[in-house]
């Protein structure tokens, strides 16, 4: 899903870094958001709604709509669309509102 050749832009991707998603090892690039890295890896479902468990992905990509909340390194409600990926992050689907306990 990554663009290699583009008529206007040259993509300078940062160094490749590894992270864990739902127990799988994925890789992304330094400088990317978690959502972008997941999307490039084909992951579109980021969380599930609280009552009906409907799949949710991102929508606005600027941190204002609350559709992309995931559990990152055990911290819930992380807006992955604006949070940068770091080496070794552990990212998991969030069910509903997440637990602060």
């Amino acid at each position, binding site marked *: 899903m990554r663009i290699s*050749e*583009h*008529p*206007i832009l040259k993509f300078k991707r940062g160094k490749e870094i590894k992270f864990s998603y739902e127990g799988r090892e994925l890789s992304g690039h330094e400088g990317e958001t978690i959502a972008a890295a997941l999307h490039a890896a084909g992951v579109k479902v980021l969380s599930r709604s609280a009552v009906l468990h409907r799949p949710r992905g991102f929508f606005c990509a600027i941190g204002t709509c609350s559709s992309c909340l995931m559990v990152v390194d055990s911290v819930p409600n992380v807006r992955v669309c604006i949070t940068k990926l770091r080496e070794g992050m552990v990212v998991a689907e969030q069910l509903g509102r997440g637990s602060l306990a």
Partner: protein
Amino acid sequence: MDDTLRRTGVPDKDAVQAVYPTKDRLERGAVAILECFQNIPCNPCATCCPRRAIKAFLDINDPPVIDWEKCNGCAICVANCPGLAIFVVDENYSPTEALIKLPYEFVPLPTVGSLVQAINRAGEVVGTARVVRVQNPPNFDRTAVVHIAVARELAREVRFFALGGVGA
């Protein structure tokens, strides 16, 4: 203004005719045709023309006005129009062909000599074209100008092309 254009994005024959050069001028060689039908605040065509063939705007919302006698079809305006709305047509290119210079911002760029599908304003394939030249200098800032040769009778119709799939 042309209702078809507002509804579909494709200008009708009358709208195109209204901006088209005379038959006499077309027969004398390459000339720019400004297919700009809406009054929007925009004037780079006038400021970039090295021959001042496109007149300076009094009000930037005015439609562009071109002096076809001053225009030599160099296509600098083709690369500079933010709306990609300018085309150079040379109906004198050969006894059977016209040359169309059009803006192109996709990859890959076509190779010179290749055959491509000739496409009209509505995105329909209307014939085949031969790529004659690809201009992509740094000062065109990534808007390449591709020169394609088409059958003369298609000169007023062809405004785009697609790689491959030729022969259908």
